[in-house]
């Protein structure tokens, strides 16, 4: 008795199966290699600077191409400060908008504005940079800075924080522009997170006589806390690595100081501006690479945090 006839093509089909599996596997490996290569190239590129300066690379404030001495403190501080300002401004804005869109506004209005906000989250960052350069910078220089310089010059802690020549560029301005850039993104994610709260919970709370704010504060916010933090951390990651929106408005001076209104620079803007002038193999290029490596680590860390928070909820 012979077995059921085996189709003639089955061997070829099996071969094709193995072939396609290998193809898919190889593409996945290539994606892995891209990131691996990125990190390795940054690390080896920055190795020279890190071995020359050691750990003092991170607490030296001077960035001096003439004396060939480089420290990462000024750009790192600029990056961190502008990101913190952006988050301080964007979080209330995004949270309020998301609360409004999900709980207060009528369904039709929420649909229109929600779509608009989501669309604007996709606008290229250079547009925000130009808008900041032509709108926010003159506004800050002409109105905000003269005002704070006049009224808060001698204030206790605020004085040194707010003084500065009325140029309009600086950490504060770039924080504002970054906030406008990441707020639509955070809002869109927060709306999704709030929408995922089971309607039953919400309705029960309303049934017990809770006000809208109480429902938000005691039902929705605890339920979606991790998702909200995840959204904020993702926005933070965007602000940390943003180049174009910042380069236009930060003034690009590598200095360290208390003033939020003085021109500064960030890691990304420094790389964008100084890289073309740095000859290959120079200490300056290596320092830029080391800066890039640090930025990569920061961005990785923020993603890991966002992932852990999202994973814990599921």
């Amino acid at each position: 008795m012979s077995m059921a006839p085996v189709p003639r093509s089955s061997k070829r089909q099996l071969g094709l199966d193995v072939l396609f599996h290998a193809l898919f596997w190889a593409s996945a490996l290539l994606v892995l290699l891209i990131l691996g290569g990125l990190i390795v190239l940054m690390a080896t590129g920055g190795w020279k600077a890190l071995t020359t300066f050691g750990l003092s690379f991170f607490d030296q404030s001077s960035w001096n191409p003439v004396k060939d001495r480089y420290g990462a403190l000024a750009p790192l501080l600029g990056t961190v400060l502008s990101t913190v300002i952006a988050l301080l401004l964007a979080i209330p804005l995004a949270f309020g908008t998301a609360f409004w869109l999900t709980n207060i506004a009528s369904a039709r209005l929420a649909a229109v504005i929600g779509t608009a906000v989501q669309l604007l989250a996709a606008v290229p960052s250079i547009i925000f940079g130009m808008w900041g350069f032509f709108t926010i910078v003159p506004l800050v220089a002409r109105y905000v800075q003269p005002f704070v310089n006049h009224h808060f010059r001698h204030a206790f802690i605020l004085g040194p924080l707010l003084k500065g020549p009325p140029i309009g560029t600086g950490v504060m301005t770039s924080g504002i522009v970054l906030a406008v850039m990441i707020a639509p993104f955070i809002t869109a994610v927060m709306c999704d997170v709030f929408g995922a709260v089971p309607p039953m919970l919400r309705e029960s709370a309303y049934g017990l006589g809770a006000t809208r704010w109480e429902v938000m504060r005691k039902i929705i916010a605890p339920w979606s806390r991790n998702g909200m933090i995840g959204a904020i951390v993702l926005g933070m990651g965007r602000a940390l690595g943003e180049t174009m929106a910042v380069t236009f408005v930060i003034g690009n001076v590598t200095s360290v100081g208390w003033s939020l209104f003085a021109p500064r620079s960030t890691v990304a803007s420094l790389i964008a501006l100084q890289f073309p002038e740095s000859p290959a193999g120079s200490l300056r290029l290596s320092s830029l690479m080391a800066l890039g490596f640090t930025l990569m680590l920061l961005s990785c860390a923020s993603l890991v945090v966002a992932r852990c928070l999202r994973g814990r909820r599921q």
Partner: protein
Amino acid sequence: MSETAQQMARAAKQRWHQGGRARRRQILDRIATGASIAAGTLLVLVLLSILWTLLSRGLAGISWATITHSMGPPGSGGGLGNAILGSIIQTGLALAMAAPLGLFCGIYLSEYGGKHNHFASVVRFVSDVLMSAPSILIGLFIYQLVVAPWGHFSGFAGAVALAVLAVPVIVRTTEDMLRLVPTSMREAGAALGAPRWRVILSLCLRSARQGVLTGILLAVARMGGETAPLLFTSLGNQTWSLRLDKPMASLPVAIYQYAGASYDDWVQLAWAGALLITCGVLMINIIVRLSARR
């Protein structure tokens, strides 16, 4: 007895309505509602202000010459034609590289990468890291990988940098969309005797076609507006140039070069370019949205 109980209830009710607690809750609610409406309005107004600035400054600069002339020295009546063409070429080339890679990688993650496949979970994580990596670092990376060994900037390097940006977007959407395909479909295909590659390509991918296309379109939108990775790779070019081994112009880089200039006609062109880019990106997103609804 019952009368006093009723009186007490009435008194309690009155206290409730006039008392501090209810009043405080109501006031708090009003404040929160007002603040959130104010925040929403502020955000919408700021975003409208961006659109308004773009339209009012950009529309004046858009003419036939903007699209057909190449960039040139200030005052010479230059346009952005070569930059638009360069952007299209580089984005197209990047898409040709990124789409198959992202698609295959997404297929691997969804079809072969189960819970116990550690390699797949590492790749998934790495792809997410790449998606959120600062784009200027990708420019630096490609500079070292492609530009430095060749010894000069090139349009090809720009396309590679854009492809690196696009791959993780395509991977993520492909995987998510393929996971939505019901298992019964795969089983039905297997039961009919189709080999696995056939099931994946002709059944799963085909039924997830719409979503996968959406991911690719979103990747195009992202690539079209990116400036930072092109600064050190394709550099920009003032003349018509179709050669991939030479520096090539692109719209975002042209905007970056022109916006900071002190010549009025260059700034005008930068705004026109910004308007064109924003319209393009928004158009792609709107198409995606409309097709998703259908």
